[in-house]
């Protein structure tokens, strides 16, 4: 792990990260003294069984949750020490989000949803960038539609568009295809791949789907709050094999 990351730039990293829920007898270590790095301009997948701590890791990396001990760095900034106010600004200006479902504000149309973080910052979207994203995601004829008028796949495309719009340092995706059929899933994952390859984005995605993981550059496997394995340039089969190994 150290060999690869010393030469490549690090977009985000966790150091000695621990997250403990409950106390005494009921103490649960969601993250257990975990160290991990996420490289810039790479698509990383985090996998692991339920309760492995993969979602907790993502939430802590994204500044939505706080560690019990340890540090989270976003570039050079230690976000685990930032105030709530500062975290909000970091999320708005430097991070992008794609959630599993209900990603969009129902009262805003597709275009407004995509520019929401920029609007919250009082910034105007770069028209060229906007057009490029809209065309890549094939949302041109859906811009004025409200989320209720869009299909599930279209909604997730808008969510990806929103994450890309502010050119964030890193995009966090939490089971982005969890609610979609396989065709729509493939489409979304292809767009995310494109975003990394063509727009130079960095994506960290939590998933339990080996096929989804196969779109990534690297898969990190978690169990009991610790990194238990890693796979570079994964395929669906290699991911399944690794999962089987870990499961035993």
């Amino acid at each position, binding site marked *: 792990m150290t060999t690869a990351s010393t030469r490549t730039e690090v977009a985000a990293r966790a150091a000695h990260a621990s997250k403990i829920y409950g106390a005494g007898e009921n103490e649960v270590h969601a993250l257990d003294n975990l160290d991990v790095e996420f490289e810039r301009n790479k698509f990383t997948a985090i996998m692991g069984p339920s309760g492995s701590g993969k979602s907790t890791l993502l939430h802590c990396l994204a500044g939505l949750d706080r560690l019990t001990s340890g540090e989270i760095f976003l570039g050079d900034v230690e976000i685990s020490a930032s105030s709530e*106010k500062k975290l909000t600004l970091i999320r*708005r200006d430097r991070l992008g989000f794609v*959630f599993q479902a209900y990603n969009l504000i*129902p009262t*805003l149309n597709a275009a*407004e949803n995509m520019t929401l973080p920029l*609007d*919250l910052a009082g910034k105007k979207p770069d028209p060229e960038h906007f057009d490029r994203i809209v065309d890549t995601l094939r949302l041109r004829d859906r811009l004025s539609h409200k989320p209720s008028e869009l299909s599930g796949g279209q909604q997730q495309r808008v969510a990806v568009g929103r994450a890309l719009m502010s050119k964030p340092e890193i995009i966090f995706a939490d089971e982005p295809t969890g609610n979609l059929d396989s065709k729509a899933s493939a489409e979304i994952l292809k767009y995310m791949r494109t975003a990394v390859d063509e727009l130079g984005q960095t994506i960290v995605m939590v998933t339990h789907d080996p096929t989804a993981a196969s779109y990534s550059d690297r898969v990190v496997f978690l169990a009991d709050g610790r990194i238990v394995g890693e796979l570079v340039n994964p395929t669906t089969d290699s991911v399944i094999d690794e999962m089987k190994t870990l499961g035993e």
Partner: protein
Amino acid sequence: MREPVDEDVVSTIERVDGVAIVEGAVGQLAQVVKLEDGKPTDAIQHGQAPTLGVTWGPNRELNQAIGGDGRPEVGRRPTNAREVALDEVTAKDAGITFAAVRRCANASECGRARVQVVFFGGHPSEIFRVVAIFQFGTVGNLAGATLAAFDPETAQVMMSRDGVFDEIHVEATPGVPQVKLRNRIRGALRDEGVTGVEVLTGEQLAKDQSDEIRDNLKFFNIFLLVFAFIALFVGAFIIYNTFSIIVAQRTNELGLLRGLGASGRQVMGSVALEALVVGLLSSLVGLVAGVGVALGLQELMKVFDVQLPSGDTVILARTVIVSIVVGTLVTVVSAISPARRAARVAPIAAMTTDMTGPSSGYRRYLVGGVLTTFGAVMLAVGLFTDVEGFPGGSAALVGIASLLVFVGVAMLSPLAAQPAARVLGWFPARFRGVAGRLARENASRNPRRTATTAAALMIGIALMTLVAILGASIRSTLANVLESDFKAEFVLRTKNFAPLSPEATEAVRDAVPNAKVTDFRFGNLELANETKAVLGVDPNIGSTIDVHPRLGALEAFRQSGGMLVFKDAYEEFPARQREAGVLKVRFGATGRQDIPIAGVFTKKDAIGNEFLLAMSDYEENFTDRSVTFAAVKLPAGTSVGPAAKVIDRALAAFPGVLSEDQEEFKKGQEAQVAQFLNLMYVMLALAVIIAILGIANTLALSIYERTRELGLLRAVGMARKQVKTMIRYESIIIAVFGAGLGILLGLVLVRALVGALESEGIHFALSIGSLVVLVLLGLLGGWLASIFPARRAARLDVLQAVQSQ
């Protein structure tokens, strides 16, 4: 309308078998004035309470003579024309000590134990020696009234009751029943041919008096209950809205219940039961809080200078039961429609995530339209026609009609909610960035919820608009009348609009010799079996107040007296009477009389009466000489400033009597109107506060419903401040929408009301300032309503919110 009794009746009654004591009594207005160095200074009066002169005769104890439980504290009965007895509080205010009175009563060293008393029947004011101080019960005097007691003969002379008494008190010999003696006296009076004397037993009199007090209190009770009802009505809207929202939010749960086999009736029953429990608990809390508020409100009234009779707070069992029953009932009734909607939830709803609930569609608008139309028609009938046979009269009809209009408009209001929210949301959307835009979207995303929430505020604001514009109309009418019809430069009146002594106006006549002074004296007469108010006026009225008489009317009035009649009243007379030119009327003192019609006048705005009787005729037919008010027109070429000084000097001997120029008079009248308006505003403020709580409630429920959405917004970078801004503007949009609806509806109602009052001389006047204030009130209300929900929304845990369903 009781008229004095001839004093000869006393001897007639004395001869009746079973009579022990008979004593004539006088009860009139008499103003006690404090003396300093022998000069009159302060007229003693407490608030609006009357200043009374009574008799303390030789034959009876004081408490029998003046009623109640009056008893002397010090001194003795006044026995001659120079002596008076005062109640304790009045004596104290006049600076008279017990010691001084004791010396005066026993040793005739009266020194400072002297007061001046001003009379209202024409007798000049006199200085009296105070020979007794007496007490009324425990409080010193009765409800603030001042009491001066005289020897009966003195009272007759001073209070212009020569040869007559206002009342004759009779005591029976022991063993003779009151009713029997009353019948004997009636018989004796009939035998002597005495008419016009009413004989009542003490019991009957006490009952009449307590009935009268109860009637007065009843009016006050109804007044308060009307506002309590308005508050409940507003509350019902909020309860309805709350249950609608929670039923919608529980659609999944209710669908599941239905899926598990619950019948629609059972689902409805569960919601109704919830309403019953909530209503019962809330009523209990409300009852306890109400007792607390009752105490607080008394303090608040004092701030607004509204005098209320004070006393112990009484909690009746009836109050407790009625409050709880009414509160619970209103809650259950308000929840019925949402409960029925809950019963209609299909089992499949358990699977869907749509939380907006079934839409009610056109039926709601149809019912709303019908109710509005029906209410409007009823309103018109109540306002513009004479309603007979409707319980409670036209006031009740108008009240119920307004109620229907409110409900109808509230049902229709969702139609306007979306466009209104878009228009009102323009400002935040334009200037408050995406938070403002979201506020606008949130306010218009559920028009029914927004409209119902706003409708609760609409009611209070509509009534405030009505009060404000009615007040403005009255003020503007007053100003117009003063400008156009008031020729007099000064008005003479007392501080509290009680009558003044004719002595006072006489003094002004003497002081400004060429001035025209018109006295106005109030009285009642009977015309065609109806009691009518009449003003006795000096025939020079044409010089002081323009009543717009028809050609020749004033000429005839000046020369031969008689009656000036307002045109509307004149036109209602039978043709026969108009041709004859004579009114057949009955006066209390002189019985049936023919009064010639001097002419017709066409504007009564300045005087408010339909019948003006020449002063000579008034004096022949009324015993009262007190002046209601007087108008003073200076001779041409006299400047107002110096004249005011001369008049003030002449009135110095009459403390309590004011001479006001037009501006002061107007201000005084306006202050009276303003005082009433303030009382109404305070009462209506309750309805507005409840509505504001309702907005806060709806917002809190909406925020709960939108937890995930809020989490998402926070996750993608919405700052807490922006969350607050978003909620605040949503609240303000709802509140201003409600205020706007209220103002529109209020304007329609008040326009109709003033239209109906046109015949009373009130003309419609718009007060833009008041409307602006009401809009600002809506704005402020919205802001206040948002404080708590906005804080809660801003403090949501982002991660939990994002993960919630």
